[in-house]
């Protein structure tokens, strides 16, 4: 994490969301093959989804860094007072920043899953996905490559 006012935490959160999608690439593709859409329920439908998100819940932000994270990612701000009860203002802001950043990664990951589902839906004839139509013998690798391409496009943009 870079210190300073110029650091773009939104871009970093987008990159981390794409990295998390790459981490779950096989599961996303499996779900697309089986149901036609991938789930955005990270905690329930992905193996160790909570642990994957924990990687992006880093503490130890300085007051300046925490202020930047919270200002830049205000729309993802976490407001659960139980998380910082009894902490000093500096510690509380640092925890709030860490939770806000993780929440941003989570929400941006959900957005990405949504875009993948829409893109696959728009290209059904190329992949033949869904519970009834899917054939394990054809077009399997094509779907994986397509989803991977969508995720990597996100990484390239961020």
């Amino acid at each position, binding site marked *: 994490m870079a210190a300073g*006012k110029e650091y773009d935490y939104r871009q970093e959160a987008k990159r981390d969301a794409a990295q998390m999608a790459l981490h779950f690439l096989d599961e996303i593709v499996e779900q697309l093959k089986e149901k036609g859409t991938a789930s955005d329920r990270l905690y329930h439908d992905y193996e160790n989804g909570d642990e994957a998100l924990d990687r992006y819940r880093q503490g130890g932000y300085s*007051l*300046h860094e*925490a*202020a*930047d994270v*919270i*200002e*830049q990612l205000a729309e993802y701000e976490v*407001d659960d*007072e139980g998380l*910082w009860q009894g902490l*000093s*203002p*500096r510690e*509380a*802001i640092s*925890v*709030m920043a860490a939770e806000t950043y993780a929440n941003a990664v989570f929400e941006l990951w959900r957005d990405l899953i949504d875009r993948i589902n829409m893109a696959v839906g728009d290209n059904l004839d190329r992949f033949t996905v869904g519970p009834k139509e899917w054939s394990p013998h054809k077009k399997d690798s094509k779907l994986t490559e397509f989803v991977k391409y969508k995720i990597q496009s996100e990484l390239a943009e961020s």
Partner: protein
Amino acid sequence: MAKDDTDYLREARDDAKSAAQYFLDEIVEAIESDGKASDDLTNDYSDGDSYHHETHVDRSYKLIEASNLLDQLSRYEEGDPGLWQGMAPREAVSAQAAYTYGNAVYSYFRGLIEEINDKVAEENFDVGPKDWSPLKPKVSLKEFVNKVIAEF
């Protein structure tokens, strides 16, 4: 996000000078009667406590402003958790910044009063309960104190 380039040290110093200007008559009266002025802004000046709180403490800061202020004025940082108990982090940091700024102004005010007392003593003004004479010196005590404040 808006940058905050405020020099809070300078602002605190300027506010301390403004406070001394505001209480100039009382400072001069104290020197005339006791030989020195008090540095206890909240207790020894008329409505000093409310003046200090309303003018220097009772402010709210955005998160980025509060973080800059707390960095710049770290030696004056307020550490009484009772002042922000139960507040959300944003409000708590803002409150800590506000009290920290108040501490900084108070500290500068004390430093300024000490300087005024030292300079008055050096200049041998005929002040104090026994020595004060109504005969006017070349430069009035009030003018002299005012000059010390301006140069602080």
